[in-house]
């Protein structure tokens, strides 16, 4: 062999797996890291709520109703004298689990449908995509209300309701990337060595769709929390006395003029949490999207 042209890459360089590459870029997304740290703290708070909350969430105290923030009650009390700060801590359990569970459920169904739709095409693709079109035609909240109307109010049904309107989002997203990825020569190469369709989808297509799925997952959790809170606000979600943030907002509505803390703090909790999920999603997108990759 002509020995004049030596191979380029130096052997000493560390192996750059796609995951490491992602971590390297994600480290530069300061806002997203801050959001991620906040969300991690929120998750820990939800897990350790019984230890962290100074009061029981449903314990009334009629001697201290509608009190403003004080040393004893950091976020004040509501119309039954319940400690709002404790209720927000307990409420994070509900909001976060509803957010994660619903999007996970909707995401899994959507990803599977999208993969099948994009990979096989034909009538199956048309069928799945038309169903998605129908679901898309409804405003999300209206669709959720519809599902609740069928299943009945309650926090578990909120999970299903929010999951339903996450399905088409993921299905379309994954179908799009699948259509692009299945043109890749390496998919042909896998087919040429006799890999079965199912494995081609799992090994060669699914990992390629993951970056956009992860980004959307993060953003959808924010939306899901917001929708779940809205459903509870109009009385279709969590039922009293559970300390759901949306339900707390609804409770405080009547006292907004005299005791703004009853609505302010749950509102703030929703706002900050959803914002954090969106910022995390933005950062993930910048770190995962090769089109935005800088040199």
């Amino acid at each position, binding site marked *: *062999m002509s020995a004049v*042209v030596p191979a*380029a890459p130096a052997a000493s360089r560390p192996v750059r797996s*796609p995951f490491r590459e992602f971590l390297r870029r994600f480290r530069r997304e300061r806002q997203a890291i801050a959001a991620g740290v906040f969300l991690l703290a929120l998750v820990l708070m939800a897990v350790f709520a019984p230890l962290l909350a100074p009061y029981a969430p449903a314990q009334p105290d009629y001697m201290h109703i509608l009190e403003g923030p004080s040393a004893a009650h950091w976020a004040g009390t509501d119309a039954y004298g319940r400690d709002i700060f404790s209720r927000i801590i307990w409420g994070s359990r509900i909001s976060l689990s509803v957010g994660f569970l619903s999007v996970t459920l909707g995401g899994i169904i959507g990803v599977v449908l999208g993969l099948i739709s994009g990979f096989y095409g034909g009538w199956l693709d048309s069928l799945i995509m038309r169903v998605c079109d129908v679901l898309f035609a409804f405003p999300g909240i209206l669709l959720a209300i519809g599902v609740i109307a069928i299943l009945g109010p309650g926090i578990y049904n909120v999970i299903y309701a929010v999951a339903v309107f996450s399905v088409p989002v993921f299905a379309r997203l994954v179908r799009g990337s699948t259509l692009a990825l299945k043109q890749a020569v390496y998919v042909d190469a896998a087919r*040429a060595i*006799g890999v079965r369709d199912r*494995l081609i989808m799992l090994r060669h297509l699914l990992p390629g769709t993951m970056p956009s799925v992860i980004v959307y997952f993060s953003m959808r959790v924010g939306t899901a929390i917001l929708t779940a809170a809205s459903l509870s606000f109009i009385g279709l979600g969590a039922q009293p006395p559970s300390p759901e943030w949306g339900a707390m907002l609804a409770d405080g509505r009547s006292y907004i003029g005299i005791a703004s803390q009853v609505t302010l703090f749950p509102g703030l909790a929703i706002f900050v949490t959803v914002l954090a999920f969106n910022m995390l999603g933005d950062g993930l997108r910048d770190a995962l999207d090769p089109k935005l990759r800088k040199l």
Partner: protein
Amino acid sequence: MTSIPQAAPTTGSLSNAGAPPATHSTPLVEVKNLTVEFPTEDGPFRAVDGIDLHIRRGETLAIVGESGSGKSVTALSLMRLIEFGGGRIVGGSIQLAGRDGGLRDLAQESLPAMNRLRGDEIAMIFQEPMTSLNPVFTIGDQIAEAVMLHQGLGRKEARSEALAMLNKVRIPEAARLLDRYPHQLSGGMRQRVMIAMALSCRPSLLIADEPTTALDVTIQAQILRLVRQLQDEMGMAVMFITHDMGVVAEVADRVLVMYRGKKVEEGVVDDVFARPQAPYTKALLAAVPKLGSLSGAPLPRRFPVLTVEGEAGIATEAERWQDTVEPAAPPILDVDDLFTRFEVRRGLFGRLTGRIHAVERVSFKVHPGETLALVGESGCGKSTAGRTIMQLQAPDSGSIRFSGRDIFAMPEAERRRMHQKIQYIFQDPYASLNPRVTVGFSIAEPLITHNLAKGAGVEERVAQLLVDVGLSPDHAKRYPHEFSGGQRQRICIARALACEPDLIIADEAVSALDVSIQAQIVNLLMDLQEKRRLAYLFISHDMAVVERVSHRVAVMYLGQIVEIGPRQAVFENPQHAYTRRLMAAVPIADPARRDRSRPLLEGEIPSPMRKLGDEPIWAPLVEVEPGHFVARHPVGDFA
């Protein structure tokens, strides 16, 4: 290096262009110590490192080098387009003798001033003519725009100038072409349009950056000749960037060889080819496949191996001939009357209006240990034939027998097992490896899929395969993007070998690689054939490589095999007119053998698309000598 080429053919033609002979000795462009850097995460990367060069009026300087050698960066620096690509000229000067007689340093020129110079004094044509043309404007408008911008003509005059330019680049029916859009033109036509645009302002220097690399050989030959003719007519200087030594030998007066950003050799073309000085140039020239180098020999032979001893490189031709065919053994692959057509649907209701006859009654056999080359130009159906045999594409009819068993009659499970025994190597090794998994996994995938190894056995086998193709076992943990093009193709070969196949379909497997790497990969394929008695179906457009590797050759044109036979017979005694034209179009990497008046194929490669019911004529091939068959019926333009 300092001598002026006296006998170069263009110098005589200068007087035609009316250029004063006095300017002949003063260089038009003089680049001194040019250094270009790109900022990267690991500090600045020096793409061009202290290049000196000069180009005289009317002269063609070829800059040759492999990918990453800095040849394109040099060209873009001359245009000062390098800044748009993120690069920076950090040192050196680029002196241009302007039309007004003044000297200016382009490295220091302001960007607005450069804008005026670009297109006017220096023009450039690029490799990919489709992306260089704006898809939403007609050809006429685009040329007229350039003319209006630089010559200050009105719309009407600009348009007639555009027409004149299209006529100048020998475009037939130029007036009709003015109102066409780029996508309606073939690649060769688009490159002509690009040249017309570049020449519309009569620049004194034309920079051509791999202008023919994306084109078929017959079209490449036309474009090269056109550039040469226009240069003679207009007396301009040409800086020709290429990786192809054959093209250099064809067009250049002087050659500059680049390697890793540095100039390693410069000289008059005949000297460089006849007496290369730098070891790198020697290696490069040794690796270039030369058509006709195996004349008189019936068997394929490896590329010469180059050993570097001190300053001198010695190329030694391999002793061994590739005598691996077992003619008595039953064929491993037997393709009979294979048809693959694609339907063309038009209109609102998707009415079937025609078919692309990609593979048209193709029959051939491949014996164990044999390499059959399938050659032809783009659109001739050679890749579709390969994909159909690999079952990546369904045929319309015909039979494919593998080891005597009909593939289409097999039950699904057996067909899957058969996949082990036929493997495919794709043109682009980077695209055919999943970027998200390690190279080790890619090589292991066929083993896992067919349950050929388990647990630690997989790792062992992968390590062995990597060693077999000349890589090291610890490469298994790395990802495709960490390898060079040649290494990636080795990985793809390792993957193909994992199942111990009997037949490998190599679809343009070496055409995307640099010549020295190409020679290594071809040698590797031939070594593996020697060791394992592999049969290859070698799909390629490159006649010179085909001559090296193949035992037999099949020439495809418009979906049909027009000539098939032993390689020596087809190359030394080509019977079909198309085969002869194909060979005549191959640029020969030897300036002593260049013949600028040889007949070329005129016009375009016809389309394999036919209207419904318009069946092509077919007749059995005629045997002209033992095993050498040729089509005597009319195919396309060949009656």
